């Protein structure tokens, strides 16, 4: 039993067909529980009022926006090294999902920033680096669309993903230079006793779990679609040959 078994599209399709409904159900359970708990059963913050509840969408989306790129990086590396098509297709499938998470983080951030900072947008290092991340996602998706040969597209986007990762980190430190952050630093970390007050923390954890599961579900679903597209193309090609 190893992870490489799933490089076989047939095996992947069989397993993901079983896993998909469970993942979808778990996503729904986590998100409904987390969001309802967060929105209706937590007290208002003493300073921020009820706007603090945006945290249940903003933080998980931002977390997953970055992690989606990391997942794409891992999948791209696996494709470049071991040439497993499922891996390349999973990276392709994750692109639009990651872009959506980035946009959710940006939009909820703007909605939160308006009452708190008095502005929808500021050229704050964190905000700027997320905008750049969105551009990276756009470029990645556009390159997949533009190249016709699927193997060439997979190779080129993998190279772009690797180079892009380095530059995303570089940009992050470059914009730090301006030193005019409105956005607070990292609040959540694993090694602290209490990150934020427990009443907010537990529903937030539930929402983060929900977003992770949602990412998993969407990527599985989209990868399955991509595999089916490949199969249809192969069938069409065979018919043309005959």
């Amino acid at each position, binding site marked *: 039993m190893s992870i490489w078994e799933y490089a076989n599209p047939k095996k992947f399709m069989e397993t993901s067909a079983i896993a998909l409904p469970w993942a979808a159900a778990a996503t729904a359970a986590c998100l409904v529980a987390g969001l309802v708990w967060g929105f209706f059963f937590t007290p208002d913050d003493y300073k921020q009022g009820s706007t603090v509840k945006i945290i249940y969408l903003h933080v998980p989306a931002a977390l997953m926006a970055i992690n989606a790129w990391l997942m794409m990086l891992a999948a791209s590396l696996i494709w470049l090294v071991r040439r497993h098509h499922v891996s390349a297709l999973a990276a392709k499938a994750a692109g639009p999902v990651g872009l959506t998470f980035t946009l959710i983080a940006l939009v909820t951030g703007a909605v939160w920033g308006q009452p708190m900072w008095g502005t929808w947008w500021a050229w704050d290092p964190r905000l700027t680096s997320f905008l*750049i991340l969105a*551009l*990276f996602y*756009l*470029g990645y998706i*556009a*390159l997949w669309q*533009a*190249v016709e040969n699927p193997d*060439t597209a997979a*190779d*080129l986007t993998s*190279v*772009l993903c*690797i*180079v*892009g990762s380095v*530059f*995303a980190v*570089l*940009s992050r*430190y*470059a*914009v730090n*230079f301006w030193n005019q952050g409105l956005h607070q630093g990292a609040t959540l970390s694993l090694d602290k006793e209490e990150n934020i007050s427990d009443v907010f923390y537990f529903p937030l954890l539930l929402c983060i779990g929900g977003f992770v599961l949602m990412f998993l579900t969407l990527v599985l679903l989209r990868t399955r679609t991509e595999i089916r597209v490949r199969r249809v193309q192969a069938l069409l090609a065979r018919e043309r040959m005959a």
Partner: protein
Amino acid sequence: MIALLIRDLRLALRAGGGFGLGLAFFLLVAVLVPLGVGPESATLAKIAPGILWVGALLACLLSLDRIFALDYEDGSLDLLATAPIPLEGVVAVKAAAHWIVTGLPLTLISPLLALLLNLPPAGYGWLLASLALGTPALSVIGTFGAALTVGLKRGGLLLSLLVLPLYVPTLVFGAEAVRRGAEGMSVATPLLLLAGITAGVAALLPFASAAAVRINLR
């Protein structure tokens, strides 16, 4: 490799068109911005470093698709790929040629345009230094973008989209160096980081570009 460099330079100069365009564009930006913003010298002095860097960056972007396109169309890129020098070397030479015909003239003409934009006198030296250090990075990164899109029919828009986020660190540090220089502050940190980026991309990105060219020629 030197023969290849000379060939590329000769082609760029004699085929004309594409590379003069960058300079003309840079000039246009420097003339149009004061017309649009208004002639107050204090405002212009404040935005001059940013405008000059953005102008140089966009001017650089204009000629990127020509790095590989012509060679790809007439098949000489295939010959270069099978030549005894490694493709990484070819790519590096292409980037160097692009820099000599765009980055270098942009750098040399920049003090003249800085005059139009009323850059404070203390900034001139740092403008030259930062452009001289930073534009090679623009050429090398642009070569990577051009290598990714070389096989595409209309890669121009995609090329700009791919390259734009990659240009961010260079632009931030370059403009920051000039701004600090113009205000009489210490420029060492942004200038060193700029030089670091240039050295880093010049050393590493040709490998990625060569890989992309190989994939496209397959």
